[in-house]
């Protein structure tokens, strides 16, 4: 069981991610944008961060960059949720320090299979 921070501005996606992960026995913390996520991440260590890219206030890329600046998030896996059209985003994310990505749309099984790679 891992503690996972799920960041997405879309409530339905967040719920889906969160429900799936909880169903697999993980502890899930939800945040609706980068600012909230960063605050939560500073508040307590998590084992994995799954973040959407397009979000208000602070987007996923900025969040990743900010997280990597924190000593306790130096090596924590961070996955970003991207759409297939944003190949450029993947690269941006990588250079910000993303561990990997999950391509939208995905189903719960794909999500679980992917996070298994990093947990």
């Amino acid at each position, binding site marked *: 069981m891992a503690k996972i921070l799920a960041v997405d501005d879309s409530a339905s*996606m967040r719920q889906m991610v969160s429900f799936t992960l909880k169903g697999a026995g993980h502890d899930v913390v939800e945040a609706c944008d980068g600012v909230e996520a960063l605050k939560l991440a500073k508040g307590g260590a998590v084992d994995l961060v799954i973040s959407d890219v397009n979000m208000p206030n602070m987007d996923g890329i900025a969040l990743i960059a900010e997280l990597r600046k924190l000593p306790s998030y*130096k090596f924590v896996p961070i996955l970003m949720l991207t759409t297939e059209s*944003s190949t450029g985003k993947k690269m941006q994310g990588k250079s910000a320090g993303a561990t*990997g990505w999950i391509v*939208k*749309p995905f189903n*719960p*099984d794909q999500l679980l299979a992917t996070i298994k*790679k990093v947990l």
Partner: protein
Amino acid sequence: MSVDLSQFHQVFFEESFEGLDSMESALMELDPSAVDAETINTIFRAAHSIKGGSATFGFSIVADFTHVLETLLDEIRSDARPIRQDDVDLFLQSVDCLRDLLSALQSDETPDAEQSATLGKAFEEILAQDPQSPNYLTVPSESSPSGDIASRELEDSSSVKEGPEGAEEIDGPWRIRFIPGRDILRTGNEPLRILRELEELGRTCVTPIFEQVPDYSVLDPEACYLGFDIVFRDRISKSKLDEVFEWVVDESDLEIVLACHQHDAEDQGSDESGIAVSENDGWSVSFKPGEDVLRTGNEPLRIFRELADAGLRHVSAQVESLPRWSLLNPESCYLAWQLNIDAGCDESQIHEAFEWVVDESDIVVTRQVSSAKGATDAADSSSNGQEVDSISLSKSESVSVEETLESREPVSIAGGEPDSQVAIASNKSAPQERDIPKAAPAKKTSSNESTSIRVGIDKVDTLINMVGELVITQSMLGELGNDFDINCLPKLREGLSQLEQNTRELQESVMRIRMLPISFAFSRFPRMVRDLGKRLNKKIHLELIGEQTELDKTVMEKIGDPLVHLVRNAIDHGIEQPEERVEAGKSDTGMITLNAYHQGGNVVIEITDDGKGLDRSRIVAKALDSGMIQEKEAQSLSDEQVYDMIFQPGFSTAQEVSDVSGRGVGMDVVRRNIQALNGSVEINSTIGKGSKITIRLPLTLAILDGQLVRVGDQTYIFPLVSIVESLQSKDERVSRVAGGCDVFQLRDEYVPIIQLHEIFNIDADTNSLDEALMVVVEYDGEKVGVVVDDLQAQQQVVIKSLEQNYQRVEGISGATILGDGTVALILDIPGLVKLAGITHQQQVQLVSPAGSTPSLKSIA
């Protein structure tokens, strides 16, 4: 695990409509001549969210449409394309279109694809135009090839990815040379995780490449210096392998080629372990955790504990990797272990135990076979660190070991040089074989679940508020105490009363946290009743009343099973078959009502059915049969007493034992469970009309509002909620009934009197009723007067279980400790009535003045 995505649809629709609303208002605001980045972003995000959600939840028509929309918006957002007024109009149209599509989907209708297709085409046309062309802003014109390519690219990116996968042939074995980039760890990618993933795809054989590992002194602990030479021995398509390295391929040196047969030698080494399945005499695991293993929160000893269940026989620690003391980092793990595990253990179990650390550790699992061949192998491959292995193994009674390639050299992921590894004879952390507690982890999870409680944030807020006030009061009192003189007395009093109020409020808030609506317990019944009814071919209507009645969580958890039992009984034994019901002149649909409500300090749950009711004669017959009562007793028993017998152990009147109920193990357990909660259960039944089971439960198990009374030198506590009134008793109002059961005339009714000092056999101040006080309590709608010497304070008392600390005492529900440290007993009114009733049973039945029949009956 399959997750039903439809449960998220509602949220998706709601947020999509919200998104469309904000998109619309942003579009209205948008001024093409002075585009505000944030406005565009808002529009883009809304479209993006709708696209992501609809694709995920399978609404492809919405997803396809928003995709084009998003693509265009993205270009505008990234300044690759200016926005024109026409575009804004088009966007607004698409908002309407999306709204229609989503509404249709929401109400399960087939959405009209025509509009979206037209709009989609319009967007594609825009995308096809070259934004750089000088007349783009003015003329909405024909497509130009360059723009076309750009949009194609975006459109097809998914199919490009799919393409080669399908086309490529499955081949193998593969040889992979993987030199991760130095910074790979900083992106959170752990090479060993990748290796693990490869392992899941097929058999692998990994040899680390150390060439790049620098000297200890210049080694950057955050950099990755290792490379890996991997032989993937199974057949697989190359794209599958590419996928594994997808996230790291850019910064790493990766080479995936078909392995030629010269690698056969390497293959063989581990192939043998694959053959040896049949003759496994045990497992030998060499486990060298990564130095950082502790920093990931993984504690090797915990792993051993887990393995203890799988039959861990022996653990020996290897200390050769320990550096000089001066170099030793207390947060690092330098030890390695050699484990011996019973043959009965499954390999997967072992892998599972190491699952979380396999990435950063060097783990070799081998089967120990008692063949001479294995021994030679081990001897052959022995070199520096290897010798230590075999020594430690021979100590642990093992005969031989098969080594796979990975363990030829002691591998440290941090790449420490062998020279710097000074052996220090210390195995303090090596666990002994049998002192490992078993099954601890599994238990922990299950108890975690049942002890958590979900609390509304408002309840927590009130609580925090309360605590704040308490702190203020406390500091006020503290201040007062620092410099106290008698003039401050009123202030002290005021402070204390404030403290009392704070404490009470705090307590109430805390209690509220534990209170849950009883619907938590009721919710399972509709389904259960339906299923059972179907199985028994009975038509049943279930009605739930008072679902919002709140009840302490602990009580709730414990009442669930008894309730299920009672409802099941009602369905199985109570409700008749439809034909029978019609014959009896009732509707063919049986009715079961669950009703919960508060009554005083209790929660009452009634289970009512309109079935055939309890058959007195059958119960009596059964009781006679089983020797529970004698023939002559049977006649004199009241209906209540007869019904009460079904709560006796081993009693069932069911003609046949069905799989639903009727084994006679239920009702006594039901009563015991309810009694354990300080509750009571009783049955009322009319033959042919149905039964009603009433369960009475205390609201909470912890605290009680009490009225302290004194009898002689003893203090007792009445639950305040049970008290109707307290009054001076007058001897003249007492009618003495033969046998000592007196009744008191309380205005228009007669109330039986219980003399507390008689029941508990203590000396009261007086035996004269004139001088005593009477507390009138109500129990089950009946009033009873309890004679006491004196009324004292009212206060809240914390209930301590008498059963746990002493033993169950009839008439007493618990005890508490008073302010002065003495113990006071809390009266259990129903029990008290029963206790008094037993003594006066005969008389009660003799004397029944017409007006007071019900109250007298209550003490029977």
